[in-house]
């Protein structure tokens, strides 16, 4: 399963947010999109997941434009966990996760087939939600809720999983819990993962590769060690930072923001 962005440009209405993005996602790897606020990382994810139609360029899945393939077939390969979800009142965890089988059901099918139920069961097990199956989703805590929506995506039996800032509303413990779960799925089942992450330390620690965006353009791609240098951090995040190699991976210590003192001259450091 090969996902590729070719000269991808897109945005909202006529506004262009991202420009000429080239990205190749290696199967079985974890890629994180990082960048400052407004750099276009969520927009790239929305373009990759068919939520936005590209203004120019294309997203290719196995060499074919994703907007020229049947939506159901794409949804069997590519699953999405959006940043915000609506929660219908009274919907139980099991009902929610069962909706993950939608891409496999014909319009005439009323109930899930045996194989579908098995996939739902597996998704519930992977996310350790077996005991929560009859609870209403609205009654779950933030961490459990995020796991329930992850289970929905896993029930799609995807090869590629796209997650838009999955840790944003979680406390530190639940952030790590979710990322560890994703890491297991990535390593044990070869699930390809693409995340938008705000926390560069977590992104550096969990991702195989980083794609660093600046003002809608791809600034750098590569391993965390290659991408996260004091120089790029200054250019992209406008921070003075120290980068340390630690046993759990790269650690970035932000020291001070960099202010622009001159209107048209270069940034003063």
């Amino acid at each position, binding site marked *: 399963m090969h996902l590729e962005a070719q000269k991808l440009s897109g945005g*909202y*209405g006529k506004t262009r947010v991202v420009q000429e993005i080239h990205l190749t996602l290696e199967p079985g790897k974890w890629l994180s999109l990082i960048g400052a606020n407004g750099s276009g990382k969520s927009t790239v994810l*929305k373009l990759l*997941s*068919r*939520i936005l139609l590209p203004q120019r360029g294309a997203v290719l899945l196995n060499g074919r434009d994703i907007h020229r393939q*049947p*939506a*159901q*077939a*794409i*949804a*069997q390969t*590519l*699953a*999405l*966990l*959006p940043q*915000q*979800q*609506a*929660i*219908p*009142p*009274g*919907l139980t965890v*099991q*009902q*929610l996760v*069962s*909706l*993950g089988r*939608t*891409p496999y*059901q014909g*319009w*005439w099918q*009323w*109930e*899930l087939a045996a194989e579908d139920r098995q996939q739902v069961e597996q998704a519930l097990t992977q996310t350790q939600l077996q005991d929560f199956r009859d609870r209403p989703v609205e009654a779950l805590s933030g961490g459990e809720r995020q796991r329930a*929506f992850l289970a*929905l*995506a896993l029930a*799609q039996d995807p090869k590629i999983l*796209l997650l838009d800032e999955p840790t944003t509303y979680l406390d530190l413990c639940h952030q790590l819990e979710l990322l560890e779960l994703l890491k297991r799925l990535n390593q044990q089942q070869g699930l390809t993962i693409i995340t938008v992450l705000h926390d560069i330390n977590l992104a550096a620690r969990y991702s195989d590769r980083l794609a660093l965006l600046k003002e809608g353009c791809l600034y750098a791609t590569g391993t965390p060690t290659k991408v996260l240098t004091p120089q790029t951090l200054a250019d992209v995040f406008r921070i003075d930072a120290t980068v340390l190699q630690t046993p759990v991976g790269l650690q970035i210590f932000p020291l001070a923001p960099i202010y622009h003192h001159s209107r048209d001259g270069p940034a003063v450091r």
Partner: protein
Amino acid sequence: MIIHSRTFQAVILLILGLLLTVIVALMQGSVPLSLTELWQAFRHQGDPIRQTILYDLRLPRILIALIVGAALGMSGALLQGLLRNGLADPFVLGISAGAGLMAIALLTLGIFLAWVPVAAWVGAMVTSMLVYLLGRTANGIVIERLVLGGIAISSLFGAVQTTLLLLSNDGQIQSALNWLIGSLNGRGWAEVTTAGPYVAVALLLGSLLGRSVNVLNLGDELAIGLGVSPTRSRLLMGAVASLLAASAVSIAGLIGFVGLVVPHGVRLLVGNDYRWVLPLSAIAGAWVLTFADLLSRLGVVELPVGAVTALLGSPLFIWLLYGGRTSSLKGV
């Protein structure tokens, strides 16, 4: 999602209630029939007058009540699901205004009176298409735009309709008012055979849309991720809902409250799974309208059924809103 026992109970309750009401409605009227007389007449035996009463008067009227009620119930449930708003009813997208304008125009001008049902149907469909065009943007159909478009069109057409009513004479106002309140009086086999097939097909189509509603309720982005196109699904849901409402309106005029209250009641019974809410709203709508029609026929003077549904529906709605054990309006 295996059938929960609660859902199963609700299905049984609704079907039994419907059957019982239909039987009572067949027995009651200006000439009451006993169960045995009803059975005899049903088998084309006994008093020919009773057979005529059953086959030419009561049965077609009850069938009409079933058709119109089912159409209104499912249409309301579809629109409440589509617009994610418990205050939506079959007429929210300007259907009443469009149908009303056409019907009132013909009734007050006194022309083409036989074409009132067709004109109402055309008015309803054209208006809802207009509202859909207003709701469209480059990124698909936006719910707020749909609702506001419906309100704008409704008030525009409403103004024209009021002007027409003010300019017409008393007799025409009487028949126009009757139509606006909604009535089943004098409807028969002709309406059953013309509108019945459309409504049946639309009800079947609507029953298949439950999963799309469930998925869309998770938000547009997740729906796209699951391979469901929000725009295409909304168009289909809106088209079926409009077809159902337009058919109901063309037969019986503007019967209010059935499409608004029935889906709430059904959600109280079976929860928010629209695979069940949609077909059960049709059944419950059929039940409620048959019951209301029975009540409207029992009085000394026959009331228009629309007045009965409003009289029954308004207190029920207030109870659902403020007094219900678990209000179905909570965050719908």
